[in-house]
């Protein structure tokens, strides 16, 4: 990395959406603060943010492993059976000459969610036990937040739903263990994201400098 020119920081909040300069407020847990100018979300305070997020992440990790190890769906037609796993779709797309689509499906349904689970555990774990955060935690946490929109578990589930309906006319479909684990994974990851307070994490990371 190129050398960086040092900068001086100030204790304000700048709205991401309209650049209004706002004073940071002390919020009661469970409430949010909106920008007075554009109405954008500027602060949100959560109950036991780090503890709760970690608990959901551990549950999510177990479900994520189950979802990847066990069969996802069994397809029966005229006495023949086809079992597929969570990763199967991405592999078939790759094999059939659509590597871009295969990678896109793999990353949005498995890769990015995995990076999010492991990355958050990696950063929040030490913070929970009040360890002095390592210098690279900042960039790691920044990366985790940046990949957020690219993890598409719940969208994937709707795709599964549409596929099931489309096939139900011609064949029998039996969801496997991975299917139910994946449903659980969506719930736990939604809960983990809802209890995460990035500003709090940044504050803890910043205080260590």
């Amino acid at each position, binding site marked *: 990395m190129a050398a960086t020119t040092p900068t001086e920081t100030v204790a304000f909040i700048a709205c991401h959406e309209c650049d209004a300069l706002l004073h940071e407020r002390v919020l009661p847990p469970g409430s949010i603060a909106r920008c007075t100018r554009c109405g954008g979300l500027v602060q949100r305070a959560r109950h036991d943010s780090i503890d709760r997020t970690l608990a959901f992440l551990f549950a999510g990790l177990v479900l994520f492993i189950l979802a990847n190890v066990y069969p996802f769906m069994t397809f029966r037609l005229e006495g023949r059976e086809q079992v597929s796993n969570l990763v199967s779709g991405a592999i*078939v797309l790759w094999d059939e000459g659509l590597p871009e689509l295969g990678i896109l499906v793999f990353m949005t349904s498995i890769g990015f969610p995995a990076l999010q689970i492991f990355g958050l555990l990696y950063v929040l774990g030490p913070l929970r036990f009040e360890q002095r955060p390592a210098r690279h935690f900042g960039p790691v946490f920044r990366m985790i937040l940046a990949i957020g929109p690219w993890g598409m578990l719940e969208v994937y589930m709707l795709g599964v739903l549409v596929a099931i309906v489309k096939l139900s006319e011609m064949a029998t479909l039996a969801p496997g263990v991975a299917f139910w684990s994946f449903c659980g994974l969506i719930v736990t990851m939604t809960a983990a994201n809802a209890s995460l307070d990035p500003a709090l994490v940044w504050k803890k990371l910043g205080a260590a400098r």
Partner: protein
Amino acid sequence: MSAAPMTASAAGLMGCHACGMVVRKRHAKPGQSLRCPRCEAPVHARKPDSLQRTTALLFTAAVLYIPANLFPIMTVISFGQGQADTILSGVIHLAHGGMISLALLVFFASVLVPVLKLSGLTFLLLSVHLRWQWRPRDRTLLYRIIESVGRWSMIDIFMISILVALVKLGNVATIETGLGATCFGAVVVITMFASMSFDPRLIWDVMEEEE
């Protein structure tokens, strides 16, 4: 808007786009970069070349949107007979099969959302270019909506990936993917990048200058 707060930029400050840290504006020394002291992201008052980047990405997505809709996204081959589906014909088939609510869902995700993103971002770009003063709060809200709904267009791509993995029964039934799917996937990804590269603060900068 008489009691409008001062902007960070006008106060000689800039907010880190990644972590929200507010730092004083200054020029980087030659050969050096200006980075956030907390998260090490490059800091700048506004996203660099936001309008040009968003325009270029939007244009690419709009061009790809045509083959994405013209070419089939998949072909179901059953007992030697093939039936090709485009995005729109897939929705129509669902509706004909009596799955109205699901047809509406797919119509929303695969047709309405991409159109809303393409036209909405074009509108926002134009409004900044032409320095409109009109309803900045509502335009910011529109941006927020565009940013959050984009990912839902992936439903069709995921559906195809599940179908190709499940339906592999030789001549009884197979599913092949079409060129339309690749183009559509590209449209979703590129429009997501386009909305990320647009800087909603530009909407407000115009207001600032006129006050």
